[in-house]
């Protein structure tokens, strides 16, 4: 065989190979691909792992019931390691390589902001189940969420602190690297001032920091009645331990970033009589929730689902419900159907998306009592404000 002939043969073989590969890709079209990006490792690992369990449950249930639009669902999940850059990579890969029709994720707002940017640019609808920073859905008509947003969450904690705990002087310690934490700091401090309280000091840290003694010494000096820490659980655990070491005994207040079994593991007794706002409590007696918890426990060795798992389950089901209503997986129509979600019976409550693609739901406040997080109060969204 001459060199030229050989070259042509190789080229032909490559073309044929490509054609086969493309055909294989098309052959897989009898499934609907859904992408999920989550922090399955890293400092926020339980967020991603819980979300993964919730989403898988919803997809498996739908597949067992015969799939959606006559097709089986295929879930593709990538790890973000809790890093914004990895979230962007994961979403790009899901859209460009895996050709998913819709995206689910993330929990941390900074990561949802990064992923949402790419979803929006590519016109693929995305539902975040637990990112509460308002910017996540602002100006992005392809990005939706099934949880409340931080202006309300900050208000809920502020209301509970000033009304129930009678705390008037509150200090804030927030993570300057997380959009979630920076946003909540503003929302909370605004709400406290409106409710007649004062903020003694606003101190910052960077996620992954181990030493908080300088900030806590300053906080201690202001003698606050409570300390608000809108961070993620690994850092909060470290902070709680050091708060108690410095002899500060006032309650710590937090938000849904605290929701992980790891927090209790890290901080233990330091959390006694501390409070945080969350999306749900396992003590809620509603039958659909209790049925979900029972099923979740059966699947995961008796583990009680945390809020991220429950929200992820709801988020996936909202997407599937919209797919059925739209009767197509074409992105624009699907996005329109998601936006029209009204009175959807989720396990975390009834979900109705407003014109800003956000859900309006009450928040529950949990208290650490006898080594367990117990239901303390429920705060409804104020009628006039979102």
């Amino acid at each position: 065989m001459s060199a030229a002939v050989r070259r042509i043969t190789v080229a032909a073989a490559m073309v044929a190979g490509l054609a086969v590969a493309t055909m294989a890709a098309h052959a897989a079209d009898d499934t609907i691909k859904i992408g999920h990006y989550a922090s399955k490792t890293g400092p926020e690992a339980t967020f991603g792992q819980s979300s993964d369990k919730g989403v898988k449950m919803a997809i498996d249930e739908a597949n067992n019931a015969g799939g959606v639009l006559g097709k089986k669902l295929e879930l593709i999940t990538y790890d973000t390691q809790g890093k914004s850059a990895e979230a962007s990579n994961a979403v790009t890969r899901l859209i460009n390589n895996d050709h998913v029709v819709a995206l689910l994720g993330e929990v941390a707002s900074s990561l949802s902001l990064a992923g949402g940017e790419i979803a929006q640019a590519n016109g693929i609808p995305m539902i975040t189940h637990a990112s509460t920073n308002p910017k996540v859905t602002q100006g992005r008509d392809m990005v939706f969420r099934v949880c409340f947003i931080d202006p309300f969450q900050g208000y809920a904690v502020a209301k509970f602190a000033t009304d129930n705990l009678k705390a008037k002087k509150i200090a804030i310690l927030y993570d300057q690297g997380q959009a979630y934490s920076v946003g909540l700091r503003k929302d909370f401090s605004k709400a406290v001032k409106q409710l007649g309280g004062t903020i003694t000091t606003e101190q910052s840290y960077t996620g992954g920091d181990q030493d908080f003694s300088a900030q806590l010494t300053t906080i201690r000096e202001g003698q606050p009645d409570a300390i608000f820490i809108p961070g993620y659980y690994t850092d909060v655990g470290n902070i709680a331990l050091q708060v108690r070491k410095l002899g500060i005994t006032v309650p710590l207040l937090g938000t849904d970033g605290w929701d992980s079994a790891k927090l209790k593991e890290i901080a233990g007794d330091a959390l006694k009589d501390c409070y945080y706002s969350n999306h749900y409590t396992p003590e809620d007696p509603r039958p659909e929730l209790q049925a979900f918890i029972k099923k979740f426990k059966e699947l995961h060795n008796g583990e009680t689902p945390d809020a991220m798992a429950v929200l992820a389950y709801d988020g996936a089901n909202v997407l599937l419900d919209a797919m059925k209503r739209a009767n197509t997986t074409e992105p624009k129509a699907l996005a329109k159907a998601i936006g029209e979600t009204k009175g959807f019976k989720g396990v975390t409550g009834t979900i109705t998306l407003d014109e800003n693609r956000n859900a309006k739901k009450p928040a529950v406040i949990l208290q650490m009592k006898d080594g367990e997080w117990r239901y303390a109060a429920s705060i409804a969204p104020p009628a006039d404000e979102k």
Partner: protein
Amino acid sequence: MIKLVQTLLSSISVGSLYALIALGYTMVYGTLKFINFAHASIFMLGAWFSAIIAAALLANGVTGIPAIVLSILIVMVICTTLGFVIERLAYRPLRDAPRLNVLITAIGVALLIENVAALNDVKIPGTQTTIHGFGTQPGKMPELLANADLFSIPLGSGTVVVDKVDALILGLSICLMIVLEFIIYNTRLGAAMRAASHDARTAALMGIPVDRTISITFIIGTSLAAAAGFLYVMKYPSINPPVAVTWGLLGLKAFVAAVVGGIGNVRGAVVGGLLIGILEQAGAAYLSPHFRDVYVFALLIFVLLVRPTGIFGSTAVEKV
């Protein structure tokens, strides 16, 4: 007033940790003339091994002071062995190579350690062996000392709190530094180390086993990093995953401490470490915690501009 005293106390405790790590950088630089980037990884291993060993000791009923002494010794032995292996396999073959090659090798070693440590129950293909790394999630150091204050000193309208762990850090750091000072300036080994650092070729001609001396220097530096790792997790019981940026950042800050004190100078490393501790804590307490890392690196820039040899560094000073 309370704030000032409390800030000073935490500065000293944080500063001694930086000093312990900085000693390793400075000793290796003194003898081998390269920056051992794998040092922060050894520190990380020291931290993680401490947690595992402490948990194992507690499970076998060893508690309190014996548990502390035992775990720190075991951790130092493990890390020292690793340090010896690293020096033997990665750095010794490059003894006559250009310095840049060694530097790049050090970065490679750091990456290797981090990534092997991050493995989680990985099965080696074709064998029955599984690697149990530390994984990619934060870990937890069990409590060896009861979480109680050592002193609560009333001062004015409040109290100053000194933690047992802080006292332990300070005490142990001082002990280790005295031992190191003694070895370097009062033993034959120390004389050999100083000679090898001053001029390796001439030292070899004088009958000093330069290779062995360098290995020992390296091992001592590594054991100090292991001790620092142990003290670090005693103070901050929740441990970041091996690949977390925190380790690298801590290593960098300790490296800044070594440079500020005068790289290659042992006393300089201690002073530099304390200085960085004070700067970071006071800056965070009185200016803004927003820029706590900025203060440290601003000091580095300042020192490099004004006195590039560092506080104690000069060409005439004996190096180790």
